[in-house]
């Protein structure tokens, strides 16, 4: 097989993949900083965490999917880190 990179058989080819991942991380950090201060992502409180169906306050299991309701979730805005 004709080698694509400078030489074949070394772990330095992994640098391509690592470079892509690092670039991706840097790009997402850059975008996150730009969007900092945006409105937090709000979630209605009485919604099944599994299927999104509306739940009555006294329902232990979701009538749609059968999962037990999870404890109330903290609002999930952009998290640090």
């Amino acid at each position, binding site marked *: 097989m004709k080698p694509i990179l400078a030489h074949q058989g070394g772990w330095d080819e992994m640098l*391509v*993949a690592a470079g892509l991942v690092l*670039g991706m991380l840097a790009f997402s950090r850059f975008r996150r900083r730009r969007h900092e201060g945006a409105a937090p992502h709000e979630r209605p409180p009485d919604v099944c*965490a599994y299927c999104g169906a509306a739940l009555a306050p006294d329902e232990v299991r979701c009538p749609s999917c059968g*999962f037990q309701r999870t404890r109330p979730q903290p*609002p*999930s805005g952009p998290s640090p880190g």
Partner: protein
Amino acid sequence: MPLWLFIFGAGTALIISFVALSTLWTEPRFEHRPVRTARPSWLQSILTNRVLEWVIRIVMLLFFLVVAMASARNASPTETIGPIVVYAWFWVGLAIAHAVLGNLWGTLSPFDTIGRLVGFADGEDDDDTVRPYPQAWGYWPAAILLFLFVWVELVDPFGRIAGHLGILIVVYTLIQIGGMQRFGRRTWLQQGEAFGVYFGLLAGIAPLTRDANGRVVFQPVLSGLTRVRPRPGLLAVITVALGSTTFDGFSRTSLWINATARIGGFARIVVFTAGLLAVIGLVTLAFVLAMRTAAKIVGGSWHPLAVRFAHSLVPIILAYAVAHYFSFLVLEGQIGLIRLSDPFGAGWNLFGTSDWVVNYALVTPATIWYVQVAAIVIGHIGGVILAHDRAIAMFPREEAIRTQYALLAVMILFTASGLLILSG
């Protein structure tokens, strides 16, 4: 080419796919996508023809009875049509057919046909003739039955009992009849029948589905999986399917063969069962760790996330099924064609195929390897696409992409370990 280069290439393909998705796939394309409605046509009238449907149902029911009877005979596994049809045509061939053609089991299932012939109630919500199906059960009966099936296949605990497969088919059928009678045919088959749930998941990959009128329509490949209903036991069904195929591959590696070569009898059953459970456990653990990481990023608990992202593992189930069993289906599957003429090993030649021989030159080892690598890579890329699509539907985009880092790492781990196992 050395193995590490395949692993490196596959891992890189996944990372490049992830980067491309992150930058180019900015809106959900599969989530909440309505199923198209087909117009009536001559082709649709054939595909929805009730008489044709019932002809297929009756033929399949008769074939099922032949396979069950053949499996119960005191004969070697390839002497009758039984085991080869169950493990090659049904377990592998039908699984792949579902991923290409959509849900066929709804029509082919002998259990559904039995239920319809007997006249069991549907078991819908307003149906008071049957007991309500316990919501907490969800897919758990299917998960347990699926585990028992793969346990019988891979651990072979009843190998010394001649005709055990036929007995197990009868037991399984009785469980289905009991389930349908108690909870209603449709309710039970959708949640408790292992193969209905398993094939139903794989059918979500297919580019074909049916609209509300039962007509066949096209849909984007994989998009049907976004309609998989979250229920208790969903993750268990998926990890049993994934882990069992992985264990099957692992149990053929020199590492496992050398380690277990001297173990026999009951100890072998115990060791193989422990191995099967351990691999299913490891697959589950890797996925759960990825979901815990994602849950930390978005806040909240990991379990709902694990259930909502479990569908992303289904393309990998298909990938492993193709990678591990493609050659088995193509080569050993031919025995089924030969035995079709003599299903009970009684010396018949009904269709003139009894004197055929298996053509082992049909696929070369190189072809098998490239099919395996392609299946593994494409399956994992499919998983990354599904997870990404759901993440951007659930979370703000930047957060969505960050939730996928750990799952991407797990996908790369699965890809690498899958290729390592296949290479022996």
